[in-house]
């Protein structure tokens, strides 16, 4: 038999009371906080799961925040680019309408509209979202597009000052979305075809690959005329400034006759052109060739009795930057002329250069969106003085350039739209994941309040029974029966 003393009964009650009070305290925490555990040691494995779920939920919340942050600039960008494409569409319409528009005033109006389109496109290209340029790539604080005008250039020069690297935002560990694109990639994509020479200087495309873009003016300038020996002909006073023939020795010729026999008078012509009488007093006689070109000669020292052809060598220079830099003509089939303003080069076959003048160069297929609009504007104003056939063809080429630029913009719109779609899908997935994880977290980490309340009542009842049991045990006392 086991002896139970009042002391041991009391100790048992105290022990049970402590255990129940401890349980009650835990239940109270669960009821008041809604959480199953107040510290990890209560259930380490479940708490580890809770910790991981919480971390994942936090990550998803961060992801959602990033998605929201990225959607805004992308939406802005798509809107901007759609407007940019609309501008180019109108420009293409103008390019198609222009040949039908015979009225100079109407063409001026279209040119003015183009100015407005160019300004608006530049404004779009330089648009910002929250103080960051959308089309500057990773150089978000640098204005991407500047249109520089220079007297030495055929058309204004578009400078892209941004970065070639796109800026991206990390959405999650494995997903990054590009948020700021390189403007060069959107607005300045181009190709390269043949270089067209429009003019009479005789310059032709060289065999190398040019890097100049859009248009340029090739200035062929005369520097010095020399004559083959024996005839006594010399360059006239205005030769340096006034001669317009260019060519290696023999490319141009004088036909000189000393009719006096004494070197005092006769006739002379240039390249089969009209004969002009000369005397020994002429120091600056102008001759014009059959196909154009002029030369000033000095006939004061003609050899007596000379009759025949005199070979002419006329040196000159080439320039594509309005004369800022000049390259001496070497009459080769491939000379490189650098534009000091743009830094780009043009390869020229100068073997056939015959006359000084300005040729208009068009680098086919190299016009970006801005350049195509600037060229279209200039064509509407026919700044190059093209005949109607050439002008019509030029306008067709502008249409092609604008179509290419439009296609590139739409490609980017497509890319960004796809990215936005992906973001929308990610947002939905994210939301679903958050719901799922929240539910799992609730299962693992949240207290089942109904169960808690029931258990609290159970513990309370047990405690009461504990006290009642002690009371019964302690109530049996012999003293109550002794007299």
């Amino acid at each position, binding site marked *: 038999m086991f*002896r*139970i*003393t*009042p*002391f*041991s009964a009391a*100790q*048992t009650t105290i*022990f049970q009371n402590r255990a129940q009070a401890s349980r009650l305290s835990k239940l109270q925490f669960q009821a008041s906080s809604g959480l199953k555990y107040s*510290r*990890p*040691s*209560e*259930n*380490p*494995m479940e*708490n*580890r799961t809770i*910790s*991981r779920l*919480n*971390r994942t939920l*936090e990550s998803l919340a*961060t992801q959602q925040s*990033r998605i929201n*942050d*990225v959607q805004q600039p992308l939406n802005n960008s798509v809107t901007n680019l759609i407007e940019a494409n609309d501008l180019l569409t109108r420009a293409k319409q103008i390019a198609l309408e222009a040949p039908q528009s015979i009225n100079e005033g109407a063409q001026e109006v279209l040119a003015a509209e183009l100015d407005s389109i160019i300004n608006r496109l530049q404004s779009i290209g330089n648009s910002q979202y929250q103080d*960051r340029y959308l089309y*500057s*790539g*990773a*150089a*978000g*604080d640098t204005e991407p597009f500047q249109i520089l005008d220079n007297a030495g250039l055929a058309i204004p020069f578009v400078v892209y000052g941004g*970065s*070639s*690297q796109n*800026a*991206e*935002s*990390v959405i999650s*560990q494995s997903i*990054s979305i590009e948020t700021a694109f390189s403007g060069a990639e959107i607005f300045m994509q181009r190709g390269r075809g043949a270089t067209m020479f429009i003019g009479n200087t005789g310059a032709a495309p*060289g*065999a*190398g*690959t*040019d*890097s100049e873009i859009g248009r340029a003016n090739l200035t062929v300038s005369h520097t010095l005329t020399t004559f083959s020996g024996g005839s006594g002909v010399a360059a006239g006073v205005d030769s340096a400034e006034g001669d317009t023939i260019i060519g290696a020795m023999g490319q141009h010729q004088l036909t000189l006759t000393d009719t006096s026999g004494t070197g005092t008078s006769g006739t002379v012509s240039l390249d089969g052109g009209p004969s002009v009488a000369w005397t020994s007093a002429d120091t600056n006689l102008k001759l014009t060739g059959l196909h154009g070109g002029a030369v000033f000669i000095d006939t004061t020292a003609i050899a007596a009795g000379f009759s025949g052809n005199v070979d002419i060598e006329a040196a000159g220079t080439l320039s594509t930057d309005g004369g800022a830099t000049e390259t001496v003509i070497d009459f080769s089939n*491939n000379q*490189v002329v*650098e534009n000091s303003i743009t*830094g*780009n*080069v043009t*390869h020229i076959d100068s073997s056939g250069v015959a006359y000084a003048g300005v040729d208009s160069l068009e680098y086919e297929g190299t016009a970006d969106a801005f350049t195509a609009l600037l060229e279209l504007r200039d064509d509407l104003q026919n700044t190059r003085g093209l005949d109607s056939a050439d002008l019509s063809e030029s306008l067709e080429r502008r249409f092609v350039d604008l179509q290419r630029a439009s296609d590139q913009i739409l490609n980017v719109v497509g890319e960004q739209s796809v990215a936005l779609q992906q973001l929308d899908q990610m947002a939905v997935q994210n939301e679903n994941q958050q719901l799922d994880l929240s539910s799992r977290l609730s299962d693992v980490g949240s207290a089942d309040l109904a169960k808690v309340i029931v258990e609290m009542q159970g513990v309370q009842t047990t405690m009461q029974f504990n006290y009642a049991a002690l009371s019964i045990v302690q109530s049996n*006392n*012999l*003293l109550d029966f*002794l007299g």
Partner: protein
Amino acid sequence: MLNFNAGLSALRSSQVAMDVIGNNIANANTPGYHRQSVQHVQSAPLYDGDFWRGTGVDVSRINQIASANVELALTANIADTGNVQQARRIASQIENSLLPSAGSIHQRFQQFFDNFNSLQSEPENASQQRIVASTSQNLAGEFNAISGEFQELKVATRQDIEFSIRQVNQQLSALSELNQQISNAQAIGQNPNSLLDSHQQLVNDIAQTIDIKAVPESRGFTYQFAQSRVLISQSTFQLEANFQSDGSVEIREQSGQIALDLGAGSLAAMQHSLNDVIPEYESQISELASALITSVDHVQATGVSQYGPLHSVTSHRTVSDTEIPLAEAGLPFEIKEGELYITVHDELTNQRTQHQVLIDPSSLSLTELAKEISQVPHVQAVADPNTNQLTVVSEPGYGFDFAGQLPTEADRLTITGDAGISFHGVYTGAENQELGFEILDTGQVGGPADLRVRVTDQAGNEVGEYQLGSGYEPGSIIDLGDGLQISFASGSLNAGDTFSVFAVNNSDTSGTLVGLGLNSFFEGSNASDIRLSSDVSNDPSRISSGRSDDSADGSNAKRILELRDMALVNGELSLEDHLDRTTTSIAIEVNVLNDLETDLVSFQNILSRERESISGVDPNEEMIEMLKYQRSFQAAVRVITTIDETLSELMNIIR
């Protein structure tokens, strides 16, 4: 002849019995009291010539009702419970430091990466830079706080050990005295029950602190002390704590040489906590801090900030001596053999040049490293023997960084042509490599004839051959792959011209920047001294968010984000997984100790009840006994009265 002996003996024995009962009832609630009972024996009989006649009753002894086995079991349980409770208390305090909650280190890590995520999208945003700096300081602060709490816990535990030893030494002295008294009493045949009760209580009190076992002998007790099985003689046994320089503690017998294995008791738990448990968790948190510091510092040091190129940077981690090899210079983070790339910026022309410094820590001292760095054009380095720090400065008009950026132009040392050669892009390949370029033909870039360049990798394998003549637009980009781009401007190139470029993914393979704390994100090397670098704290734009000069380049911040999932701690776990594991580990320990404590306390309750069932006082039982002896007393009085009356009758006959 009639006598009063029997009656008187009955009176005496009943009185003694009632005294014992009264003492039992009085001590019914005295902790450690063992009930007593009277042992009666017949008095020695007398022979009257005819018969052996009894002479009454004697009290031979007053017994203490106790079970030695139960007492031993209870004492052992008390020692075990004391050990587990103390261990649980200390483990709980460790757990408190690591509780995941608002403001905890768990949350600080989350905020650190979240805010770097925001910075990655807007690296030029000054407010975001400040937020990152603040969050990082909070994270460092949390490490400091936890480290401080562990230090305080160690100090408190040391103090508790000293206090416990003082207390237990006093108790052991008292026990020795008590034991002597018991021995003396037993020597003269006494039952010193009260002393035995006091002795048992004292033993149990001592058992809470040390694992002691009292072995009863013929006179007094001997004692076994824990696993050492040291027998404590009756001379005083005293303990002392010997604190080592590494913070651990040895418990020894005073004037003894051998460390004692304490076994159970709270002192053993305190010793184990101080020597093993707290240092283990300290080490895990410091490991975490070190992994954070080295990984983040490396990314920071090898990136480019919004602040722009550096003009002056001083190392935060000092060597012991500027003249001894770096490998022996006492740096907290190892420097290995490898390369360090320095990019120099000409701020006037915006040109960049790239330079490689070879590092061999087994032979290179800080002074020699400074000399090597000073070979880089426009950069000067100085090793200060007073502060043991390295300072790197650039000449006016120049800046530098350690981002391993591509040079803007090729080195023209072995190029005879005049065509400009430029590098573009950011290298994204996985490994550092040196790419070699060889011009195969002579001609003009963009010219009509063939003009080719061959590109080879570090192993000499051809990466590609590219046409620079016919069909190549001068100045246009040639993509070499892995983010690397090159362009050739109009001009001439000659066959045999060669040049090379370092394509750098890791611009510091030696760990020099982290080892010395150059352009670092954090200062310090462990949980107790980690803090945000003063450079970054004073100017948050110094956070290296990119790897190029572009303001919106957040690629370096992205590298910080990538650290989150990398196995940075001992190559096994990510930072947060390691923290999770540490938190779970201590939680498991506390959980196990909780369960053990519950079981031990429950078992102690059972043992107490068992002891109580043997040695406890039931007042009802005692009162029944008292009634018995009361009746016996009354009967004895009647016997004496009857004998007295009988003798009086006899006397009347004679008179």
